[in-house]
């Protein structure tokens, strides 16, 4: 059962949301609170007002209490799908395959066959946390014990059941499967981030 709590004096956190319900509640919250910043975590949604707003907690509680017909199917249709071409020659591909008891080729086939969805974007501008839409495959691989000081821009990586793409050169501890040349974040663009929470991502092997 999700909970609602004050988060400072100008935000409210909806917590303990089942992960697969977050995109749907996120859509509803964005419509219900158009003047506020609404953004997701893995099982949370934060609603932030521009100035201290003591009534926000009650507003969110009342809104959550309203029964809503399930519009999950509609939400899915509204979210775009991005196809990222990947050269699967990452430094950690062999190790990931060994950990998952698969061959490298099997890892690539499974990774490209999986539908991924952007759960949240954080850690760095444009850095997406991608979760599998269906739980057909166990992607639990631990992060590197010692993070790399420099991960290449466009690195496609895996850790703790999620995929990610590093938008720029930065330190990182996820397992690198390959790289994509698609630009994930460009502050000069009208929409600087290619991806948004709720978007779908498919990976394709570049042969």
């Amino acid at each position: 059962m999700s909970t609602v709590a004050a988060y400072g004096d100008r935000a409210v956190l909806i917590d303990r949301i089942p992960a697969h319900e977050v995109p749907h509640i996120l859509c509803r919250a964005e419509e219900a609170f158009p003047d506020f910043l609404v953004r997701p975590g893995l099982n949370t949604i934060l609603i932030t007002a521009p100035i201290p707003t003591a009534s926000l907690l009650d507003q969110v509680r009342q809104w959550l209490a309203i029964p809503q017909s399930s519009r999950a199917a509609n939400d899915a249709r509204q979210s775009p799908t991005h196809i990222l071409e990947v050269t699967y020659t990452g430094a950690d591909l062999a190790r990931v395959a060994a950990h998952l008891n698969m061959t490298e080729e099997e890892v690539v086939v499974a990774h490209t066959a999986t539908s991924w969805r952007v759960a949240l974007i954080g850690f760095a501008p444009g850095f997406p946390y991608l979760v599998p839409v269906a739980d057909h495959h166990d992607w639990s691989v631990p992060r590197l014990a010692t993070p790399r000081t420099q991960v290449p821009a466009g690195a496609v990586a895996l850790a703790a059941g999620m995929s990610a793409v590093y938008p720029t050169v930065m330190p990182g501890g996820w397992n690198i499967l390959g790289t994509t040349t698609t630009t994930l974040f460009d502050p000069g663009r009208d929409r600087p981030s290619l991806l948004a929470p709720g978007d779908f991502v498919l990976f394709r092997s570049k042969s």
Partner: protein
Amino acid sequence: MTMTHLEVLSIGVTLFEDTGRFGYETVGVPGSGVFDPRAYRALQGLLNLDHNPVVEHLAGTLEVRLPQSAPGGVTYAVIGGSHIHQGGSRVSAGTVMVLAPGDTLIVEAQSGAPAWVAFSGLTTSKVLGSSAYDTFSRLGPAPIQVGDQLAVTTDQAGTLVGRFMAPKPFALFQSSLVIRYVPGPHQEIDLCTNTWEVSSVTRSGIRLQKPHDVPLSWANTPVAVLPSLPTLPGVIQMPPSGNPVVLGPDAGVTGGYHIAGVVITADLGKLAWLPEGGHVAFQPVTGETAGAVNDSLTEALNTKVLDPRGIC
């Protein structure tokens, strides 16, 4: 009003900042902006700034010079700093002054005594609609370097010169021992029984150390890390080490540590004034109290600045 420039002769930790960039947190971009938003609003009132950036100078010696060939004087004002000199004379913080052609301005800053300097017409490049420099994401106009030229304008009529801050806002700009916060959302962490030592202060965050002899009341929390959730500046994170981190304006927008509470909006600026090696205590308040405090702060900062010449 004519465009001119200032020559940068010396810098320390010296950046352009404004009110920050908002609406991009959803795609991982911190709001950034001035470390003390109150200082920006005070300078905005003193110099009638539109949305011009200011120079944020957190440590070292800032020295700028208006070339002798400049077509006129450039008005400025400083909030904070440990020493301010113009042409060898001391200058008071919170007063609008004019830098004449050939004059040099020196502003010293250090931990516990940060400085913000506004110059008439200061402009620089923008990224995502803001001139704020984000030290974490490295977005925004680059940190100011020796040899840079700061684009400013001469002050047309000098009507602002002599303005100074009313006593109430002036009193805000000093180190404070108590910072107010709203507890939660992870309620089981008690912050207010301890006085914390300040280990380091940066725009990404303030690291605190627990006192040696005091056990933490939450030490039995079984879960060290949570599924990533959105964060805000002012969030007080409690990592497994037991040494809290208070997020600054450039902190990443998501995190996985327990959150003991969030500093109230009105007290966010106090974080910039915490001295390394000093101490701080946290006082829990309700959302209602936080709102009332913010309203008083806004009123104080909007107090009409006084002009000793009797012109408003």
